[in-house]
């Protein structure tokens, strides 16, 4: 008999199986605008059916990381009385807390026979244990560890399954009307991912740009009009990562919509952002863009190295309309590939770029060159007399109230001459040029470093940095020597 009951019960949910498809979302026409700093603006136009007077409307299926203080509802012919965000969640412990002073049913199961007995109990307190009054006795729930089930007659009204947004509206007339709910939420973010395939022989790159957006919410945004904002409101644009040293950010205007200072990247078509999903949509694909490989080395201070140091391999290209990628580039990671001898693309390194205006020159450091190395050495440190004099002291002396005379003291300026040598070696079968930078020139108290001799003419890139283009023959080496005169 019981077996039959079980099978009936088993069949009953079979009928319910068709419902395993997701419940229809309460969201209406959704548009999602995602910023770079884990922030998104959701605009959700739903149809509300309101009665004349004060209505209480619940808004299910909002993002679970909603910032409730940013909620705004715009609806015609109704004014907002109050807005509530209730997050007192329904749970067994919340249930028993709300049952204090009320009567519940206890079902005791005899562990030996399995027989059930029922009794009514009044909940007195729930502090570190549930204190019950059963008849005239006071006891603690499950103090003996034996099975006791608690059965409630009803659920308290203010406990909810999920945090719920509810808004009370004063409608000036009954009927159905559209209402736009907008709010900010976290848990949605995006960045760009670029794939650059470098053809060294042709000195070109093929670049694909992908928008990568992430939804860490448990809520889907179905068929959403999605807009991506290249920027972080309140945080500014960020640094200049990826920009070639010595170049200015580009000044060209990309053919994209702007939001204030930021560029907008519309996804193009409506997309469904599933819960816990990372989604990529293409936004850029250009081929045959001129690109060149550079070798860079920077010595931060006048120091020696006992082992040679590899030069950095840098890929340089432009985001300009002419001879470049022709777009403003949102911040992200550039991954660089190169084809191996069998023609298969292989990864050779990656780097980050910041939001880059169109017309900029980029320099992406992908890694270190195996075959191009630099060995810096301090060859000499010597004190030199410059033949220059500087006034170091000045006195006004008056003897017995007489006319004051001025006495000055001058010292000869002493300089230290640091002779550096940079041995650049190249084990590649073709000549290379290394952009060698010595930094730290303006990092002294006196700010008057001079370069008194150099074996290759350099260019002063800034007060602190001097750059030499060192050409090294195939399977050969070049030594650059430079003398710096400083005041310490």
């Amino acid at each position, binding site marked *: 008999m019981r077996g039959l009951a079980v099978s009936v019960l*088993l069949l009953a949910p079979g009928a319910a199986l068709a419902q395993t498809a997701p419940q229809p979302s309460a969201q209406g026409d959704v548009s999602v605008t995602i910023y770079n700093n884990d922030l998104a603006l959701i605009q959700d136009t739903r149809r509300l059916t309101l009665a004349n007077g004060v209505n209480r409307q619940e808004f299910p299926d909002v993002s679970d990381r909603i910032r409730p203080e940013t909620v705004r509802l715009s609806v015609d012919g109704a004014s907002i009385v109050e807005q509530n965000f209730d997050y007192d969640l329904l749970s067994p412990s919340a249930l028993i807390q709300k049952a204090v002073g009320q009567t519940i049913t206890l079902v005791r199961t005899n562990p030996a026979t399995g027989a059930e007995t029922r009794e009514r109990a009044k909940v007195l307190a729930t502090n570190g244990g549930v204190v019950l009054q059963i008849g005239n006795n006071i006891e603690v729930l499950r103090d003996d560890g034996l099975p006791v089930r608690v059965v409630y007659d009803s659920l308290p009204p203010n406990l909810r399954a999920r945090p719920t947004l509810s808004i009370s509206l004063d409608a000036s007339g009954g009927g159905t009307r559209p209402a736009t709910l907008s709010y900010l939420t976290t848990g949605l973010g995006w960045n760009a991912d670029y794939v650059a395939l470098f053809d060294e022989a042709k000195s070109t790159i093929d670049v694909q740009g992908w928008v990568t957006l992430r939804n860490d919410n448990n809520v889907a945004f179905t068929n959403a009009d999605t807009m991506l904002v290249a920027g972080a409101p309140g945080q500014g644009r960020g640094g200049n990562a990826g920009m070639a040293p010595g170049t200015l950010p580009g000044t060209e205007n990309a053919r994209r919509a702007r939001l204030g200072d930021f560029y907008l990247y519309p996804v193009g078509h409506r997309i469904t952002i599933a819960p816990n999903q990372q989604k990529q949509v293409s936004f850029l694909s250009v081929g045959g863009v001129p690109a060149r490989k550079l070798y860079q080395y920077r010595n931060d201070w006048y120091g020696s190295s006992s082992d040679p140091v590899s030069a950095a391999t840098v890929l340089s290209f432009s985001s300009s309309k002419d001879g470049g990628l022709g777009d403003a580039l949102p911040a992200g990671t550039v991954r660089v590939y190169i084809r191996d001898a069998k023609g298969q693309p292989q990864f050779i390194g990656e780097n980050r770029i910041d939001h880059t205006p169109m017309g900029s020159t980029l320099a992406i450091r992908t890694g270190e060159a195996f075959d191009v190395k630099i060995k810096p050495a301090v060859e000499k440190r010597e004190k030199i007399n410059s033949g220059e004099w500087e006034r170091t002291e000045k006195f006004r002396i008056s003897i017995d109230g007489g006319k004051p005379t001025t006495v000055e003291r001058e010292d000869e300026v002493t300089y230290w001459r640091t002779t550096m040598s940079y041995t650049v070696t190249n084990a590649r079968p073709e000549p290379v040029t290394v952009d060698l930078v010595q930094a730290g020139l303006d990092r002294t108290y006196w700010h008057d470093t001079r370069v008194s001799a150099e074996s290759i003419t350099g260019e002063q890139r800034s007060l602190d940095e001097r750059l030499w283009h060192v050409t090294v023959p195939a399977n050969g080496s070049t030594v650059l020597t430079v003398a710096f005169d400083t005041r310490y």
Partner: protein
Amino acid sequence: MRAALLLLLVLAGALPAHAQTVVTSAGPDKVSVTLYRDPDRGTQSAINRTYPQGFALITETRTVTIPAGPAVIRFEGVAGNILPESALVSGLPDGVEEKNLDANLLSPRSLFDRALGRRVLVRRTNPATGKAQLLQATLRSSADGAAVLQFGGVYGDLRCSGLPEAIVYDGVPQGLSAKPTLSVKTTAKAERQVTLTLSYLSGGFDWQADYVIAMRKDGQSADLFAWITLASTDVTSFVDADTQVVAGKINRTANSNYGPRNFVSASYLPLQCWPLPEYDLEAAYSADVMRGAVPAPPAPPPPPPPAEPMAMSITTISEAKLATAEDLGDLKLYRFPARVTVASQSQKQVGLMNKPGVKLSPVYVSDIMRENAQTTLLLRGKNNAANGLGAAMPAGKAAVFSDVDGQMLLVGESAIDDKAVDELVEFRMGQPQSVSARVVGTRRRPNDRTTGYTLTVTNNQPWPVTYETKIHLYDYEKMARSSSRLGRKDGASFWTTIVPANGTATLSYAVRDDRKR
């Protein structure tokens, strides 16, 4: 019959209701794995076999029949530590509309959460009789407040009673998958079979070169053999893979986060109950132990006896198949001679280079600063063809063996960084015992500006050795005189000599302090 029906219904429930067709590619036809060394691991440190910090580029060829119209192609059998944003799919005739990594995983939590407000079955087993009872219930709380259920007109919880209870769901909710799954969306004009190339980066791999150096009897040359040692901890094995390793240092960005993010915590379903009375039973137990009522745990077993010192011997690698080298931009790529299986949780070795008769001479070098002399033994050779080398040498460890009475014994371990052709390769063998350098300084008067130093190098071996030293001075110091002519190296005064067998070599020099007194 009923089981079959149920299965059918479950399958029907698992199918999406959208118009797009889902095509599943179960695994690759051909796979190529390129391993990259952890860029932040020093040459001295070993591969972390539990959590290798290097990575790999996996390139897979897959054959898929795509239908006409909108379709989703799901890729199964990809590496577990995939970096999804690096995934590239090529070969789709009509391009990729979007790429997705769905991480809504089938878990206790997601099952519970998706069943909110729905009818489920609660199976309650009578502990006395063992009989199970199935009850219809409706879930009323979300996973954050689990679990409150409605049984008919009354409300209760799950398992707070102490009775065995379980929720039985009627199917798998749509969109939940067993593993994070990569998929692409495409819209083809006509049905056709296509060969796709899927490539992506994945963490959980590492490799290094391992050099085995067998010194010859002359003490000036060696037979050098190198292995490529690679390790994988990925859950997926790559069977019959074209395997490559890339040598050189690659730039990685800090935000390269591999694999699933917080999926475990997102899968955990905590069941809550009302507060149970708690008594400090632990204290009562300890009191019992103190009284001797509870037996103390048994003494730990004695430690194993120390291992016998191993007589290391090296297998002579004759005619080993070696990886072939090629340039990859500014990096070096080594292609394995045959397809191998990069197995899950394994380490594998393949020959990298075999260079018999390499000129590798021992040199004792010191760095001297005032009266301190640090002496190291180096095995030095120039990486060129004349010396028997002349190939790029990737970073790795080196084990040096020496022939002692016909037995190859380990004499030292070392490591080198990436070494290009024509570069000086130096294996640092540590502080020697047979050669030492002492520096003694003297001043005629305590406030003398000039200090005299005597460097004495002793050699207690029955053969002469090459000795080099770099004497480092402060900016305000000058080398005033020396008993032998000194050169310059790396910005320091440099002296080299031959220390005779069982003999000494000396250098005296004087340093002047140019500071004004």
